[in-house]
């Protein structure tokens, strides 16, 4: 059954797609997937854990095998701890179900910043041990109580350059919501995350005044989305967003920067995007309550903060390093694609994950009710 993809799940799928098209070879793919959970070179053995096994849960497919080969085995060699890769997809619903049933078999799960707060504040996650995980290796505000940012992605305004080239291109969300000057079908995501901000900027709210989100601003955001509803279609999975672009079903859209970059490469720049007013979001590792491996997960998570691994991952998949120190290691010709490059980062709005953690259950239903016609 089809479901909405998390960003991380999407990344693994994108890697496979690029591999299938011959844009990256198998070794690069393996290396990239390894870098998703990179083990820093020379990782020293420390006697953290009595645990003999850590279960890492990702979003499945070939990534299971690649994670095992590239990450599980070296970690086992360095520490003696077995790493089991489980690809069953740690959705919020599944994590909740597992913790409630009292039979937790997962240690480290792929999730997001807002989700970590939603799940953590309702008692399903362990607090991150920042004595082991290094806050200094994260962007400010991306160190969550129940989650560690592992890489960063953006919702960008992407557009078809055959419709709008050069100066005629949409420059921000106000243009996106302007049907008079920019006619045509556009695309938004069928999930509220980051989209209240997009709609508010579309209504003319300056980026620095988007937060805090008040009830009045929520209302304004819904009205703004509603004003273009007849000309808007909604994507659920990253692959679907790519189909919208590739088939030119839309003239512009609010898409993940990674997917847009892939289409940019594939179409030789037919689709382009702007970092201006993009929404920056964190993916995050979370640890379910009563995880079987106990505290052995913390050094494991800390190992993923290594900048070299994050840069490697960026080069392959286009997602951005979570460690600010990594930007300097990005090759100059690739800097313009890096969401956390200082130049690009300054143009964007980092999402308020705390707000989504507290409100997403409510506003996500409101958003779905709004877009369903």
């Amino acid at each position, binding site marked *: 059954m089809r479901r909405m993809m998390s960003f991380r799940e999407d990344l693994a799928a994108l890697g496979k797609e690029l591999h299938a098209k011959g844009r990256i070879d198998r070794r690069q793919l393996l290396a990239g997937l390894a870098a998703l959970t990179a083990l820093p070179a020379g990782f020293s053995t420390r006697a953290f854990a009595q645990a003999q096994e850590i279960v890492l849960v990702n979003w499945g497919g070939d990534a299971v095998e690649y994670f095992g080969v590239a990450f599980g085995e070296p970690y086992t060699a360095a520490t003696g701890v077995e790493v089991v890769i489980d690809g069953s997809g740690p959705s919020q619903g599944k994590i909740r179900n597992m913790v409630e049933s009292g039979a937790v078999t997962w240690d480290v799960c792929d999730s997001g910043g807002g989700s970590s707060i939603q799940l953590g504040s309702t008692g399903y996650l362990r607090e991150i041990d920042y004595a082991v995980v290094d806050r200094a290796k994260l962007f400010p505000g991306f160190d969550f109580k129940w989650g560690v940012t592992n890489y960063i992605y953006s919702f960008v305004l992407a557009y078809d350059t055959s419709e709008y080239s050069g100066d005629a291109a949409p420059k921000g969300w106000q243009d996106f919501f302007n049907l008079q000057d920019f006619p045509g079908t556009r695309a938004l995501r069928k*999930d509220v995350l980051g989209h209240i901000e997009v709609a508010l900027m579309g209504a003319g709210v300056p980026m620095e005044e988007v937060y805090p989100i008040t009830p009045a601003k929520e209302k304004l955001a819904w009205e703004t989305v509603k004003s273009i509803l007849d000309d808007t279609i*909604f994507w659920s999975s990253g692959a679907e967003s790519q189909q919208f672009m590739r088939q030119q079903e839309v003239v512009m859209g609010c898409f993940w920067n990674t997917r847009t970059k892939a289409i940019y490469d594939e179409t030789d720049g037919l689709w382009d995007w702007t970092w201006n007013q993009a929404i920056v979001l964190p993916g995050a590792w979370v640890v379910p309550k009563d995880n079987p491996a106990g505290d052995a997960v913390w050094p494991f998570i800390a190992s993923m903060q290594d900048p070299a691994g994050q840069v490697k991952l960026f080069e392959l998949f286009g997602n951005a390093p979570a460690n600010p120190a990594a930007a300097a290691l990005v090759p100059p010709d690739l800097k313009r694609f890096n969401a956390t490059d200082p130049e690009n980062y300054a143009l964007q709005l980092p999402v308020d994950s705390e707000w989504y953690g507290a409100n997403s259950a409510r506003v996500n*239903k409101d958003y779905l009710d709004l877009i369903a016609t």
Partner: protein
Amino acid sequence: MAVGTLTKGDRQAGRIGLPGVYALLLLPATALLVVFYLLPLAQILHVSVTELDVDAEGYWLGNYGLLLTDPGIQRMLWRTARICVVTTVLTVMLGYVVAYAMVHVQDRQRTLMLFGVLLTFWLSVLIRAFAWIILLRNNGLAHEAVSVLYDPLREFGVFEGRLRLVRSETGVIIGMVHFMLPYAILPLFANMQGIDQRVILAARGLGASAFGAFWRIWLPLSRPGVIGAAILVFVFSLGFFVTPALLGGGKVVMIAEYIWFSMEATLRWGLATMLATTMLVTTLGLILVMSRIVDLRTMYGAK
């Protein structure tokens, strides 16, 4: 009326009670049903009354009060019902034509037609949805063909707006009707095979016109098949997920997707389980009402 596979004696034996050995054979299936179906179902019912949704606080009916008060949920339910009714009507009408042809053609052709109907069962619902997207999207083959008729009528003001065959409710209904057709054709075919063709000859012999014989004899005799096909298609349509999600452009959200969204994305399990229970009760209610109107066994050709 219809000639079935069971003789009268067989059926009576069944009514008296199964011999012990047959009851034993039923045990594993029953146990599976209880453990993997009835128990989880009971859990869903339980959650729907114990986990109060944030919006349902203070309601006498708990989560079920949202059915009466929440405009978003009401619109979703109305949309689901509307799409399912339209799908059912179209599917049964189209299916009737095919089934009617199937009982009247030669054996060889019938086999081919049956093969054609069954063939669609082997195609995944995803593949079919994507095929429709390619055909129906702007500049797609079917879109171009329909535009030839649509555009002049639009000039005259019959239609408003651009033709949008996919990423719309129209697209969802096309996809669902296509998926559901075998589920209408097969029960209709089974029913029509049981109709004694000689009654039509008799009607014609007594002076009825071809249409009159169809309208006054054949159609009433096939009524149980029509009702059976309609229930089957309607109940299946209620649970549709993939087709509306892909062909609806994200905007045609039906109850199954709404439940999924509430389970996985918003973690509002009280709301999700309430909707799941509502759907189950509605389905059972529909079948109950229909069983009062017609004999369910007649509908699927089992009698």
